[in-house]
């Protein structure tokens, strides 16, 4: 035992220390405080050195991500611009039919919003829940700006009778509260009906559940294929003489140094129906000219291209672990009577688990969030959830929806990470 760390052993040698109570320095100050003071200067200096990076990460990473996550449950596009109607919703419970006061609030809010040119924002917010309503808001806004007379219910219904639809009022009630779970509900193919109950969306519109399932399934498959392909390479790298293994290592790293687009495009050249592989198969007579294989713009394309791109992330952690495994372990197992297969299974393989765990976790997490490759070679059946997030970011401009999907993805990955920690232990992770 290290006696120096044992407080009872130290007391015996400290003249001024009381037998019980905390340890003290020679001049009677508490030891813990003296230690903290003596180290404070060094700690402050160290902090100043990491401060630029800390600020950089905070400004460019943590804060934007926080804002993004906030969008997934907070959207004030309606409530800020329609204050009177939001007030009315707050005062009247769900199920109350809109009375003249509600219509008055609606008309005045529309008028104010149209004049402030925020009517588009309001329309967009409602459009998320009731597609096709953005134009209702903007056109009504234009007419209301020219003047509208009470009774407002009749006036607005006169402009467009869609204003009478209960679904629209239900959506506006939902949107009147800036804090909402609707985006998360939509992310798991759920919605609220007119009574505010959570129900499944019609089967034809259930897309996210399928996409999540496909994303996780494909990621799992890609992790498995990188493992099957990467394990022997890593072993070879770890056992070959230095000169040869360096050469092989360059070949493994080559994809790393090539542009992602170039790599993906070369897969297009190889895999397409008039591509190199199909040409060879036809030339060999294995398939007829009319039976060329569809290997790209579908799931197969996504799996092949992503396996190739993510392979180094499996090989490198495995290699770094295998290099440290002394060959005498396998020899010992063999001398003890194990066949080469038993020696591999019971002695070599278990020792590669930290590398395998790291590689699998790395590949899986990267695959779950991969975007460019599936977008380029995935066709429609090879699209992953990240492509849907990108679509909401750039095409539909429903950032709240994108944020909700991304948060769910992040949550799932964190759960996996936690599971890995429980099962294998995160300190067993070896990245290189």
């Amino acid at each position, binding site marked *: 035992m290290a006696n120096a760390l044992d407080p009872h052993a130290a007391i015996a040698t400290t003249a001024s220390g009381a037998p019980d109570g905390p340890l003290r320095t020679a001049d009677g100050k508490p030891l813990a405080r003296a230690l903290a003071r003596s180290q404070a200067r060094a700690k402050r200096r160290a902090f100043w050195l990491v401060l630029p990076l800390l600020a950089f990460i905070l400004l460019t990473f943590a804060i934007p991500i926080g804002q993004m996550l906030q969008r997934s449950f907070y959207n004030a596009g309606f409530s800020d611009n329609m204050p009177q109607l939001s007030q009315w919703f707050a005062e009247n419970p769900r199920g109350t039919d809109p009375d003249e006061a509600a219509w008055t609030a609606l008309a005045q809010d529309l008028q104010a919003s149209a004049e402030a040119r925020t009517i588009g924002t309001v329309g967009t917010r409602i459009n998320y829940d009731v597609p096709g309503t953005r134009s209702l808001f903007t056109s009504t806004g234009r007419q209301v700006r020219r003047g509208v007379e009470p009774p407002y219910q009749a006036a607005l219904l006169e402009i467009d009778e869609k204003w009478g639809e209960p679904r629209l009022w239900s959506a506006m009630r939902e949107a009147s509260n800036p804090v909402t779970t609707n985006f998360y509900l939509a992310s798991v193919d759920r919605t609220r009906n007119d009574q505010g109950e959570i129900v499944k969306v019609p089967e034809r519109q259930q897309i996210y559940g399928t996409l999540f399932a496909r994303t996780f399934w494909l990621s799992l498959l890609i992790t498995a294929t990188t493992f099957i392909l990467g394990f022997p390479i890593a072993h070879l790298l770890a056992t070959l003489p230095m000169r040869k293994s360096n050469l092989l290592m360059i070949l493994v790293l080559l994809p790393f140094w090539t542009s992602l687009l170039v790599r993906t495009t070369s897969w297009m050249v190889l895999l397409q129906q008039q591509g190199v592989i199909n040409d060879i198969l036809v030339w060999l007579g294995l398939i007829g000219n009319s039976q060329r294989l569809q290997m790209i713009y579908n799931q197969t394309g996504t799996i092949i291209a992503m396996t190739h791109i993510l392979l180094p992330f499996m090989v490198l952690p495995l290699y770094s672990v295998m290099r440290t495994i002394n060959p*005498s372990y396998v020899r010992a*197992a*063999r*001398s*003890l*009577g194990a066949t080469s297969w038993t020696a591999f299974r*019971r002695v070599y393989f278990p020792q590669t688990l930290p590398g395998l765990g790291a590689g699998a976790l790395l590949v899986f997490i990267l695959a779950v969030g991969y975007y460019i490759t599936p977008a380029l070679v995935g066709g429609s059946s090879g699209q992953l959830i990240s492509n849907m997030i990108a679509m909401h970011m750039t095409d539909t401009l429903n950032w709240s929806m994108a944020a909700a999907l991304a948060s769910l993805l992040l949550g799932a990955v964190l759960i996996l990470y936690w599971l890995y920690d429980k099962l294998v232990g995160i300190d067993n992770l070896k990245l290189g």
Partner: protein
Amino acid sequence: MLDDTHGDAFVAFEHVQKSYDGKSLVVKDLNLRIGKGEFLTMLGPSGSGKTTCLMMLAGFETATHGEILLDGRPINQVPPHKRGIGMVFQNYALFPHMTVGENLSFPLEVRGMSKSERETRIKRALDMVQMGAFANRRPAQLSGGQQQRIALARALVFDPKLVLMDEPLGALDKQLREHMQFEIKQLHETLGITVVYVTHDQGEALTMSDRVAVFNDGRIQQLAPPAELYERPENSFVAQFIGENNKLQGTIEELSGDKALVRLGSGELIDATPVNVTQKGQPTLVSIRPERVEFKPEMMPADAHLVDATVRDVIYMGDILRVRLHVAGSDEFVMKIRNTLGQTKLSPGQEIKVGWHPADARALDPV
């Protein structure tokens, strides 16, 4: 004891050669017979081919030429796991992801033994190395000496007839090493197993072995029991490799039966026993153990030739005094004298005459 003509050796190397690159031989025509129950040590500097020989016997390297026989059966084509040879590795090679008990259980499991049988054997093997209480520990939680014992127990738990040890004590400190030497020797005697032991530590080889094979340059230089190896080295390499030796260069002046007269470079004459010199005028290297050098006339044969020496320094080593002398033009001549009561005091600069019994000076091949 076993000589090379004996027929029923337990392990036999017959004309074994080994090359890794096809250009040079690491092992050159090795012939070695090891008897049942023998403790044979392969001793030599690194790169002398001793470990390669062990690896060929274990089955991790294949002989390029020649035959290796185990119990009369050629084993060149037998894979390592079917040879039934226990092996202790230099770094112990205990499986880090298994407990001590699981490590010992491994060779028994692959042999398909029942659980109860395994438990009995594991307990017996652990008790044998006084590690009975450690079955549930991981190797990383054990000290070097404890890991060494477990490695030993694992190599013995399946009752192999032959156990190979590849510098098993190399990583231990001196005191522990000496203790483990004693324990391994005792285990060898109680269990009656055959042990082939590889080391570059000559002290280890001398204390433990029945016979020692001194390797150099891919050949066995001498194969003999420890005492013979120390006292009657057959060539200059063995003389210099085992223990400390004084070397005197000279030529054979006279050769008559078991006596030789050697003229040193400085012109002085000394007595020696011819070992591998055959004729007059041949250059030779005479080797004499420092503890066999005498400087008091009454301790030497009456007709011995004496050599002039000047004391350079005296090192006090406790049990002995190590005296460095200037003899025949060299400052490297060492004499060890016992630190007894009333021993003559020597001081630097003092001029003395040294001599020795002719049997202790061996005229060997020149280097």
